[in-house]
């Protein structure tokens, strides 16, 4: 307990903890860390010290371990993690400092100017060997059956600092600790725990699960929740990565593979529109697990549980062969037959012009969207619908100016904001990783959050302003305490949920917001800052807007005779005319496929190398980790083949030519890993246009509803996933898992 209280006080100060370090400095003068016991000291000049005879310069306030790393010395550690608060309880990072009588824990020691540090002396070795011996005294020797084997910090470091024989001969044996049930994602084997408390710090600081802690003391200290409880967080999987030993391992991955058998492919996640960087670990044709990849601009090094664990959905319900509907059933067909059937169906339906409709779903990649749009346009149609409520009409915010639908402040920019207003969104479910950034900022700086829309447990406290257009109107009019705070803010930010555009009052809300932003452009839209951010929740949506995959006004009123469902599984079956010819292209036998006359099997995101545009407008390249199953093919190739079969071939034969076409549409689509800012005059012009197109929109006064009821099942992959089904049962429905505490108040009400 004493340890945990201490470590919650400390703020992790890293050279690479994102932008928070800076924002802490700027805010600490304003209001000193409201929710922290102490805030980080402002970072001052750089200091120089000597590590192993090498001079190294680091920012003042860095931990000694960071200085040692900067000097190229490798310091073993268990408890230290540069994105978490400092605990200093494993003692593995001991180094020798001149004029210090004892070895020093380098993680908890600030680097001092002019000090001389040695990391590789006999004293240091002996000290670390002693620490290792104590750690191993109570650590079971079950590496052969431990899932962490091969990627275990303790295993690796014991190779260097461990003794080859034991001096431990206690008759009573090693400490035994009962395993905890944290839910269907995290498997615990608490005997292996070395009490580094990384999981506790992560849960409390990043995930907002304040139920995890340490109970007891000394040799009996254990990690847990004291009462029986599951770890209900959408970020819980990250504690598996953080655990330096095998105490917390992945339940779905248990005993499936060893790390050295896996092929690592760096890719991009598509479960939400954050575009988390992931590493897909595969063995043969199977995705074995998904791990986060560090990218400070996007996901730091966390990913949500859906990103991490929905991969088993890639194995079930897959479409592996083209299917043709005959009567009431689907019959397998060859690709030739299927393509011919599409061409015949198009001809037979008699669809002309806008009667040819394409619907882009959640998991459509950018290449395919471009090919689809080109193909439909070639057939003389502009009827490009999106798979969402009201997706057949042009979007409220328009797509002419990209700052109208993108997350303009950028994801790291969230940490710079001092007041955030959430409109019609619950970032915890729509962009879990982004939500943890808001929490980080809320915890460490004086960030104030307001919410208009359905109430939600967001993992941070917020001022609730109301549930709909009325509350928004009050806010815009400057009524209420939160509006005052917003007005006084230096870097205010409005996060508009993507679902707002789909609400009954969406147009009116956008109108009010556009007017408000324009009026307050001195703070909201400046040369350095654009605080009007739309948070997209669907991986393909920003790309669809970027390439203009939206219907024209005329097309949206046309009744389609030929419907092409591109990964569209959220469609309302009633919205598809009975006599229309329906083609479904996608990878899962979900709703869309059941509506189709022809089903074309395509590749899932782990099986194709395609471009994904995240909610900021950042384009990232996903990479194929495994081949598509059966006869399924890459998406854009299928559309290219159909264009050939229907006699209007698209002019690109390989993906490079297709990317050239994307470059023609918008160069930012293929400028990978970069994000282009919209200049403030254009952003303002966009807002004026937005205001003009929504002028006079009616207000019904209906509440803004959250688009995601069940975080764990939002797309065909997660719906097919057994793990996500278990999560739904455990966390959303709360079945099967006993709970003994009272749960009247959300945890975020405290803190």
């Amino acid at each position, binding site marked *: *307990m*004493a340890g*945990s209280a201490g470590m919650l006080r400390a703020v992790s100060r890293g050279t690479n903890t994102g932008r928070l370090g800076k924002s802490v400095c700027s805010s600490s003068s304003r209001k000193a860390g*409201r929710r922290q*016991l102490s805030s980080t000291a402002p970072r001052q000049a750089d200091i120089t010290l000597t590590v192993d005879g090498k001079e190294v310069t680091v920012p003042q306030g860095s931990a000694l371990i960071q200085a040692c790393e900067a000097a190229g010395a490798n310091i073993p550690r268990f408890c230290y993690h540069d994105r978490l608060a400092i605990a200093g309880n494993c003692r593995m990072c001991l180094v020798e400092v001149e004029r210090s009588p004892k070895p020093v824990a380098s993680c908890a020691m600030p680097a001092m100017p002019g000090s001389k540090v040695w990391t590789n002396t006999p004293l240091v070795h002996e000290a670390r060997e002693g620490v290792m011996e104590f750690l191993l005294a109570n650590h079971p020797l079950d590496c052969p059956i431990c899932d962490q084997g091969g990627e275990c910090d303790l295993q690796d470091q014991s190779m260097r600092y461990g003794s080859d024989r034991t001096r431990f001969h206690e008759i009573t044996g090693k*400490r*035994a*600790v*009962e395993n905890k049930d944290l839910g269907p994602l995290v498997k615990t084997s608490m005997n292996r725990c070395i009490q580094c408390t990384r999981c506790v710090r992560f849960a409390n600081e990043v995930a907002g699960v*304040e*139920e*995890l*802690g*340490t*109970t*007891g*003391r000394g040799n*009996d*200290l*254990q990690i*847990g*929740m*004291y*009462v*029986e409880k599951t770890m209900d967080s959408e970020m819980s999987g990250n504690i598996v990565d953080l655990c330096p030993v095998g105490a917390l391992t992945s339940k779905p991955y248990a005993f499936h593979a060893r790390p050295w058998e896996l092929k690592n492919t760096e890719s991009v996640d598509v479960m939400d529109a954050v575009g988390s960087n992931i590493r897909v670990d595969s063995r043969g044709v199977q995705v074995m697990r998904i791990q986060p990849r560090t990218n400070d601009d996007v996901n730091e090094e966390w990913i949500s549980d859906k990103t991490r664990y929905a991969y088993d959905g890639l194995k079930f319900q897959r479409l592996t062969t083209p299917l043709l509907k005959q009567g009431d059933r689907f019959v397998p067909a060859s690709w030739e037959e299927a393509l011919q059937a599409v061409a015949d169906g198009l001809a037979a339906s008699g669809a002309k012009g806008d009667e040819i409709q394409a619907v882009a779903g959640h998991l459509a990649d950018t290449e395919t969207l471009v090919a689809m749009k080109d193909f439909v346009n070639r057939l003389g149609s502009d009827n490009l619908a999106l798979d969402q409520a009201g997706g057949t009409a042009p979007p409220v915010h328009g797509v002419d100016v990209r700052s109208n639908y993108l997350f303009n402040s950028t994801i790291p920019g969230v940490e710079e904001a001092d007041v955030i207003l959430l409109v019609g969104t619950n970032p915890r479910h729509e962009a879990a990783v982004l939500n943890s950034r808001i929490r980080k900022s809320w915890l460490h700086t004086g960030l104030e959050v307001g919410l208009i829309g359905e109430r939600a447990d967001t993992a941070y406290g917020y001022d609730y302003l109301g549930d709909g257009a009325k509350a928004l109107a009050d806010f815009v009019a400057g009524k209420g305490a939160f509006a005052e705070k917003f007005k006084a803010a230096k870097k205010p930010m409005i996060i508009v949920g993507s679902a707002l555009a789909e609400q009954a009052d969406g147009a009116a809300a956008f109108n009010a917001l556009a007017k408000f932003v324009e009026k307050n452009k001195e703070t909201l839209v400046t040369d350095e800052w654009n605080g009007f951010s739309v948070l997209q929740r669907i991986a393909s949506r920003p790309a669809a807007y970027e390439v203009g995959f939206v219907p024209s006004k005329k097309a949206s009123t046309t009744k389609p005779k030929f419907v092409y469902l591109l990964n569209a599984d959220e469609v309302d079956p009633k919205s598809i005319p009975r006599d229309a010819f329906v083609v479904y292209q996608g990878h899962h036998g979900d709703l869309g496929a059941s509506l189709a006359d022809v089903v074309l099997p395509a590749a899932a995101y782990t099986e194709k190398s395609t471009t994904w545009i995240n909610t900021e407008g950042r384009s990232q390249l996903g990479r194929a980790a495994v081949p598509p199953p059966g006869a399924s093919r890459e998406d854009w190739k299928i559309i290219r083949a159909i264009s050939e079969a229907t006699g209007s071939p698209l002019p690109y034969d390989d993906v490079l030519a297709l990317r050239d076409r994307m470059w023609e549409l918008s160069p930012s689509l293929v400028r990978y890993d970069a994000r282009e800012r919209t200049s403030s005059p254009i952003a303002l012009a966009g807002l004026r246009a937005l205001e003009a197109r929504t002028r006079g929109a009616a207000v019904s006064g209906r509440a803004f509803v959250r688009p995601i009821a069940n975080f764990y099942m939002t797309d065909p992959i997660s719906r097919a996933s057994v793990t996500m089904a278990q999560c739904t049962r455990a966390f959303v429905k709360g079945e099967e898992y006993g709970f*003994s*505490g*009272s749960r009247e*108040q959300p*945890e975020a*009400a*405290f*803190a």
Partner: protein
Amino acid sequence: MLALRRSIALRSIARRGLSSSSVKRSDALFVHRDTKYNNPSIPFEFSKENLTKAEEIIAHYPPQYRKAAVIPLLDLGQRQNKGWTSISVMNYVAKLLGMPPMRVYEVATFYTMFNREPIGDNFVQVCTTTPCMLRGSTEILDTVCSHLGDIKPGETTKDGKFTVIEVECQGACSNAPMMVVNDDFYEDLTAASTKKVLDAFAQGQKPKPGPQSGRHTSENSAGLTALTSKPYGPGEFCTPEFQ
């Protein structure tokens, strides 16, 4: 072997191993399990009087550090709840201080003076740390245990009147051996005086706390060996102007 056994019997430490407390697995100690007598659905609230006290304690700390009052409030709760801190007490304190319950559980499990299982009416804590052990705490512990009806440290008597545990140093080494009954120290114990103290408690009386040997505090039991003369009064031996 036989001789060894006899000598042990003579010194009457037969039941004394390295530790005589019943073995408790860490799970039993540091994980909460719902039971009939200890579960979150049992209501707990401070009495009016205690609530006033609690508010006074909270007022000692700046408003943003209300949670600093967690230890005194848990103690207050423990006193109101018959000497033990149930899960309801912890939840109530957490709610009162506006902190996550787990932070309270951490405190309550860290400090051994929070009893998380019910105890008897009188809580007997016998010190067995080195100074007391050297002065015969083993005998005291054995006396307590056998006198209360052959219970083991950590157990409660059948009539629910006494709970006995072994504790570490209470800081009364100069009056070793000692035991704590409820909030009071009983020091300079012998087997006989221990029994006397326990008997008094069993009858519902409260014997005079402190040394049971006739000493007042920790002065030399053989009487003063120095400073025996009359202490100087004010002004004595001073130059005339200060007299």
